[in-house]
């Protein structure tokens, strides 16, 4: 367990220069997730355009791993269909929970393969998954919203 395998250059880059950070409109769902162990937090919004995830915006407060991971999520998910996004989520989750024994697929995960090292640090897996769990939650809520109302209407669903 070498700490350098955890703090890959790519991760530190995303941490210092997060992609797509900030909360934007429009959005169909906003969620707030907390890692109860350490207090890391993320507020995350999803904007769907039909089947397409046209935006994932967020405000995150947390460690390098949790912040870099939501930045990579933004890269990987925006512009994809919900189904494709879910497939990426599955593959990222599988990597994280694989205890270092799962070989990441660069075609699917792109920069996300840098998180392979995190899987060897069980306490950090939750950090890496925080944003992804928030996205999963937000998407399910957005799908409910968009199926029960005019998908074009957006707003603050408090």
């Amino acid at each position, binding site marked *: *367990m070498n700490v350098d395998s955890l703090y890959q250059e790519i991760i530190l880059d995303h941490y210092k220069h997060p992609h797509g950070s900030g909360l934007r409109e429009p959005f169909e769902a906003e969620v707030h997730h*907390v890692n*109860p*162990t*350490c207090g890391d937090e993320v507020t995350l919004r999803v904007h769907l355009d039909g089947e397409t995830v046209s935006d994932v915006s967020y405000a995150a407060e947390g460690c390098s791993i949790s912040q870099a991971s939501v930045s990579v999520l933004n890269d990987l998910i925006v512009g994809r269909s919900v189904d494709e996004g879910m497939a990426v989520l599955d593959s990222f989750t599988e990597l994280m929970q694989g205890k270092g024994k799962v070989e990441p697929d660069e075609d699917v995960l792109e920069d996300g393969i840098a998180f392979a090292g995190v899987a060897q*640090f069980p*306490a*950090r897996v939750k950090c890496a998954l925080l944003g992804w769990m928030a996205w999963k939650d937000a998407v399910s809520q957005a799908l409910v919203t968009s199926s029960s109302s005019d998908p074009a209407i957006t707003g603050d669903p408090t």
Partner: protein
Amino acid sequence: MTAVESSTTYDVARIREDFPILGRRLSGDLPLVYLDSANTSQKPQQVVDAIADHYAQHNANVARAMHQLGAEATAAFELGRDKVAAFIGAPSRDEVVYAKNASEALNLVARVLGDAGRIGPGDEVVITEMEHHSNIVPWQQVTQRTGATLRWFGVTDEGRLDLDDIDTLITERTKVVSLTWVSNMLGTINPLDVVIAKAHSVGALVVVDASQAVPQIPVDVAALGADFVVFTGHKLLGPTGIGVLWGRYDLLAELPPFLGGGEMIETVTMERSTYAAPPSRFEAGTPPIAQSVGLGAAIDYLSAIGMQNVAAHEQAITAYALGAMQEIDGLTVVGPKEAVMRGGAVSFTLDGIHPHDVSQLLDSRGVAVRAGHHCAKPAHLRFGVQSTTRASFYLYTTEQEIDVLVEALHHTKKYFGS
């Protein structure tokens, strides 16, 4: 003939070697004959070592520590939970909540059902006359607090659950039915399927006190179909200080927390708190870390032998004991007299000799049994006795030990001149 087959492969002498205490010599250099396993079981060296090794090499607090020791301790602690879940056939590890013992687990269920308003004025809770006090008092407390009514099944002269009244007992007013799987006093194994089906038909929840069941019969909570199942580590070759509540996840997820504090929260401000998902929601404070490691080792030990084999041995030794003991003049077994739908606890009276005096005389021969009400006063009252003597058996009990018991009972009669 599987029974014979399994008894030839079941090597009780080999098993006894794992239990250092069974080699103890008592006062007068007598060998220990431990027939008090329904009270608490002995521990194999494997369990003792797992606990010692944890403290000596891997100790740290769990969940909240990010360092290597913390990761080791967390993995070891949660592995214990995985083993418990697998052992009882829980659909998910998140359905396994740790308590300090079975009593706390039963109180937890009773308290949160009350707090959740699932037990209220006019509602009824149904228990049985053969319950351990730990499955009586929490229901008295919650029904008193909420204005609900406590009702109970009676027990037949043979020591079986009296199901005659089931249709008038379990009605639309019934919100909870809580009963033991195996009686710690009578030894009776209850027909849970009948009770669970009836309770569910009226929409009541079923709590099963499996404190005496999990140690001696294979348990599959998913197949059982109850809503909550409770048991305790120390009767299962495990350490003191740990009990288990298994609950259906959807129910646990709906219920409010029990104790408040560290580890059970999602977020805390001075004004208000939100709570974590099960099982954390019900586990305030530092959990029984080393105890989960020890319980895991106990489960590994039992699984290696096979619970089917443990159950077969328990059955065989109980049949042997019931036969031999009932040949003694003046000895009356309180509870089912044959080893049918019956666990390995045999309570009895000996004419004219108080149970304290019986157990004292047995102790003078190295035979450890329990005398008293066994935390089941109502069941004793039902049979018109204030107390009984109880011999109880486990995977390490031998026929020779039963022979020593019987011989010591004859000696007791002689001693008190009856």
